[in-house]
């Protein structure tokens, strides 16, 4: 499958990059409204998103990069929810964030799961990932070396600790 990049979003795939990709020349609200809605049903409304991320509402008119790292990550995720994508690709969302923010992101992801969204999370922070994911894929040197559901997590604990060094 080889699609032009701007078509992938219309297949229902949303992307939150590692560096978050918040636009400095756009306000918080403009950042939020930037990605086009890609599904017929549409995604969450602005009010619904602001309920989920109240601090974004307070700062809707400030420039995107004036936000703290955690707020930027929230904005990067929130931005995708409006578009109605069904699959969300998250690249290391917890990187460099304070524990309390990491916890908040975990809550948001669980909420998204509950709403039926598929989330593909790439994460080095195993403690974070294991509390959220239903299914795990272990990657080494760019190749998937193991895949298992959350029910097997306990059985594999030893082996995982060895590979991940946690």
């Amino acid at each position, binding site marked *: 499958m080889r699609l032009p990049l701007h078509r992938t979003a219309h297949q229902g795939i949303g992307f939150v990059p590692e560096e978050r990709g918040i636009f400095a020349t756009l306000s918080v609200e403009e950042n939020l409204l930037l*990605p086009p809605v890609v599904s017929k049903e549409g995604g969450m409304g602005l009010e619904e998103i602001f309920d989920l991320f109240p601090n974004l509402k307070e700062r809707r008119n400030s420039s995107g990069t004036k936000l703290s790292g955690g707020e930027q990550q929230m904005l990067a995720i929130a931005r995708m929810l409006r578009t109605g994508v069904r699959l969300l690709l998250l690249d290391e969302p917890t990187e460099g964030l304070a524990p309390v923010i990491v916890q908040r992101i975990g809550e948001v992801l669980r909420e998204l799961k509950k709403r039926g969204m598929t989330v593909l999370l790439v994460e080095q922070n195993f403690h974070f990932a294991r509390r959220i994911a239903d299914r795990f894929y272990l990657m080494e040197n760019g190749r998937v070396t193991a895949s298992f559901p959350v029910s097997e997590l306990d059985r594999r604990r030893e082996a995982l600790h060895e590979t991940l060094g946690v």
Partner: protein
Amino acid sequence: MTMIFGIPVQAFMGQLLVGLINGSFYAMLSLGLAIIFGMLRIINFAHGAQYMLGAFVGYLLLTHFGIGYWPALILAPLIVGITGMIIERLALSRLYDLDHLYGLLFTFGLALVIEGVFRYYYGVSGQAYTPPPALTGAVNLGFMFLPVYRGWAVIASLVVCLGTWLLIEKTKLGSYLRAATENPTLVQAFGVNVPLLLTLTYGIGAALAGLAGIMAAPVYQVSPLMGSNLIIIVFAVVVVGGMGSILGAIVTGYLLGLAEGLTKVFYPEASNIVIFVIMAIVLLVRPAGLFGKDA
């Protein structure tokens, strides 16, 4: 006779007006250049040729088809803009992955070809373009006579600049443009057709140059070299304003036009170089330009 700084008011105001007129065209042209550079990262050396093309389209529409100034004001930018979009699609879009130098070389070559063709058919002497009757004549402002067309040109250029600025700062399309200037790949991943956006941007930039051209036709003469005479100054304006800064291009365009006009009053010998002197000073003190963000 009333005097200002030892200069008759009429002469002073007259030069200020000439400065404002020139500034209007600097602003419109550098605005287009700034938009193109911001989005495409291409230094559009064909901008002067596109300005000349706008004037010639107006001139040819009038002489061959009897189509006057007002329709030409729409048609000339449209034709130059569409030509620009075709050029972007066929040629420029293939250069984005290469060094910026190739875009500069290509547009420079393109400008030489376009100017060469028009020189071959029309020679270097200018052709006069008469403005419509509604815009001829002059009004007495009390302290000076203002030719109606010049007043119109200044106001129209202000409206065009303001309109373009609003389009970029306040609309959805503008937010795509600003975002794609920062990170085109991510904007495309969001589902925005960025290649189309680039084509459109080049078209808008070229159309602005074409509009400036048709507006300039009655003020200056329509000549194949009118663009290359102006383009160097316009590049200086863009550099002073800050590469890629929209507001910088507009404000600096008017300011440098006025500075040039004032220099003609007080020290005429320097009027041809004053813009470049200002550019040199700005580059020394603020290399990113007056409105540029420090890299």
